[in-house]
């Protein structure tokens, strides 16, 4: 059976993956919003 050590390993791993995905989600959303604003500013400087 799985030893206690391996169990904790899996828990920590899953925890980290969760944190990573969460941060990545924020990162991607920010990138999208940032490029939107960049586009807006670019358009405004053109006109």
């Amino acid at each position, binding site marked *: 059976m799985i030893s206690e*050590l*391996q169990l*904790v*390993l899996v828990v*920590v*791993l899953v925890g*980290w*993956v969760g944190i*990573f995905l969460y*941060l*990545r989600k*924020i*990162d991607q*959303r*920010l*990138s999208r*919003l*940032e490029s939107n*604003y960049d586009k807006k500013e670019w358009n405004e400087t053109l006109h």
Partner: protein
Amino acid sequence: MLVKYFLGLWMVLVIFAAFLYAPAAMGLGDYSRIIYFHVPMAWVGGVAYLVSMVYAIKYLQSENLHYDRLAVFNAEIGTLFTILATITGAIFARVTWGDYWNWDPRQTSIFILLLIYGAFFVLRSSLDSDGDRRARFSAVYLLFAFIAVPFLVFILPRVYASLHPEPIINVEGQLQMNTQMLIVLLASLAGFSGLYAWINQLYRRIVRLEDKGGEFDL
């Protein structure tokens, strides 16, 4: 973005290494593995405090409330990591010496850091009438409290060395770890630092976006 995926992978490797690659310490067994997480957490907690101080100084120089926000955010991050470090440290202490808490120098230092952070937030919450005054006082406290830190680092070990036995693995003092353990520890330290840098970067971007008028909900 590529760097961040690299960070993600790095930490996965670190976690595997912490549990499987590094040897269990003599006498302590597998519980010693908590060190690979505990030490970096304490490290980030301390670095966050320094970063907060830098932002505090920047605020005092410029009176730009931006810096105040950044200082507070880093204090929050620092507090989070310090709490985690205290908990993991307590677990380690329980396993090593039998008590969750016995005021050995390491534990006391991390606890003092927690106290300073705590006092910082109490001060802020009691001063919400005026953004500028609150920012100024917070900055002053952060700087003033820092004076105690180097003294505590030197005083504490002497005071308590007489009362408590040296830990079996004196993690930050003498490097009684073998090379494998050291590698994992350093790798974990790097990984946590990267995590901290990423979180900081995200926050700065959020603030910048909100400045331009955007809204960001978590």
